[in-house]
């Protein structure tokens, strides 16, 4: 699924990733842990085909990160839940979901069930994104991701700023994704919570992997 070797990624001339070696297998739930500025977000963006690969080598889903052509494929087949919502603030939840479903060439008939399943179907449907709470926004972003059906889910601090119910919801989504065959990589500060999910925890410091340990999470395969 993910295969990085000595991966270097520069953000504004700064080596956010300074040589990452990481292999993630099909169906794993990998948790990235490390202090602020360790390069967790950049690593996820690299896996999504957004951050550049400036050194080393890597493949995502078998596509070479060094090739611009292949990177377009990677972008289509991975899903990123980032700090930004990836939604249009001024449009309603439903308009956003319909637009992104079409943009991603997803089946339009899946929009309704997804709205319902993520509790966005009722009153929230016609509310603008800018008027939603942090948790509701995150749910709307997840809804887009669900309808894209990515093979790899890249979640950047998915629990941040959410209440208990919101966090439970994220956990449930992650389990759900894995059950349907996805691989998940989560960057998180939240120590206790994600450990329950993880099949493996990878430590990132100074843009490099400094250690890893296996977990007892619910992923499908062992590393």
């Amino acid at each position, binding site marked *: 699924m993910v295969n990085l070797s000595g991966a270097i990624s520069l*953000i504004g001339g700064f*080596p956010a990733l300074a040589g990452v070696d990481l292999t993630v297998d099909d169906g794993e739930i990998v948790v990235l842990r490390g202090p602020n500025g360790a390069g967790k977000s950049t690593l996820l963006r690299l896996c999504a085909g957004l951050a*550049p690969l400036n050194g080393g080598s890597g493949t995502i889903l078998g596509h070479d990160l060094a090739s611009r052509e292949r990177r377009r494929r990677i972008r289509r087949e991975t899903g990123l839940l980032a700090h930004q919502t990836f939604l249009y603030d001024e449009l309603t939840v439903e308009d956003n979901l319909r637009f992104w479903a079409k943009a991603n060439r997803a089946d339009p008939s899946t929009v309704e069930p997804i709205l319902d399943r993520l509790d966005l179907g009722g009153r929230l449907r016609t509310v603008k994104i800018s008027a939603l709470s942090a948790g509701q926004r995150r749910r709307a972003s997840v809804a887009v991701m669900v309808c894209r059906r990515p093979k790899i889910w890249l979640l950047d601090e998915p629990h941040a700023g959410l209440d208990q119910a919101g966090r439970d919801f994220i956990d449930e989504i992650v389990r759900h994704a894995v059950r349907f065959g996805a691989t998940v990589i989560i960057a998180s500060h939240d120590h206790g919570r994600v450990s329950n999910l993880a099949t493996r925890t990878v430590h990132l*410091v100074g843009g*490099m992997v*400094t250690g890893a340990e296996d977990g007892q999470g619910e992923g499908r395969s062992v590393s």
Partner: protein
Amino acid sequence: MTSTSSKATYVVGWAAIVGLALSLLFALVLSPPEVNMGDSVRLLYVHLPTIAVSYLGYGITFLGSVIYLRNQSPFWDLLAGAAAEIGVLFTAFVLVTGAIWGKPTWGTYWEWDPRLTATTVMFIMYLGYLAIRRMDLPQEVRSRRAAVVGIIAIANLIIVRYSVQWWRGLHQGQTLGVDTQLDGLMLFSLFLSVVAFLLLGAWLLIHRFRVAWLERQVEDMRLARALSERRGEAGGAALGGVVS
């Protein structure tokens, strides 16, 4: 490469100085005044070569941009940037000498002459190109966007040039002062000054390019250091034990 000069630039530089001195002699002393324009024709020996160098600069920018988009080589990117700077510098010089020339020939510093108008617009357009080269973006992104603009700029240049000419041309015949008649010695002076200015332009271009190249190397070295510092962070953490 640690210096921007070399034997070649030394030769080019001296040739430019000698050439400029000679063309000064020919332009101001040896060549005769023109029948219609009188002594003010002598500005032509500065004006025309300057335009030639700036157009050549923009041409190199175009070429460098095309090649850069094809092979992503920093050489052509930096060359395109350096050439645009030389082009802008000489265009500024053209506008100033044009205004000085305008006073005796037209009686004003500014005339809505098609060439003058188009050159001014073009000048601002390339200032925009240089602004793109200074944008706060990752280097490859900046270079790619600059290359795209460096290519389109040539098309803009042509459109601006002809539309402005058409704009004035519909009202009056295009006039650049009075009819000029250049005799042999005047043509030779012109030729000489064109060569001298081209040498000057080449000399400036080589040096400007090398400065940019050295800057890029410094950037790479800084990056290498940042990379090892970054790895040091990771190493320190590994030694100190990972927080869990």
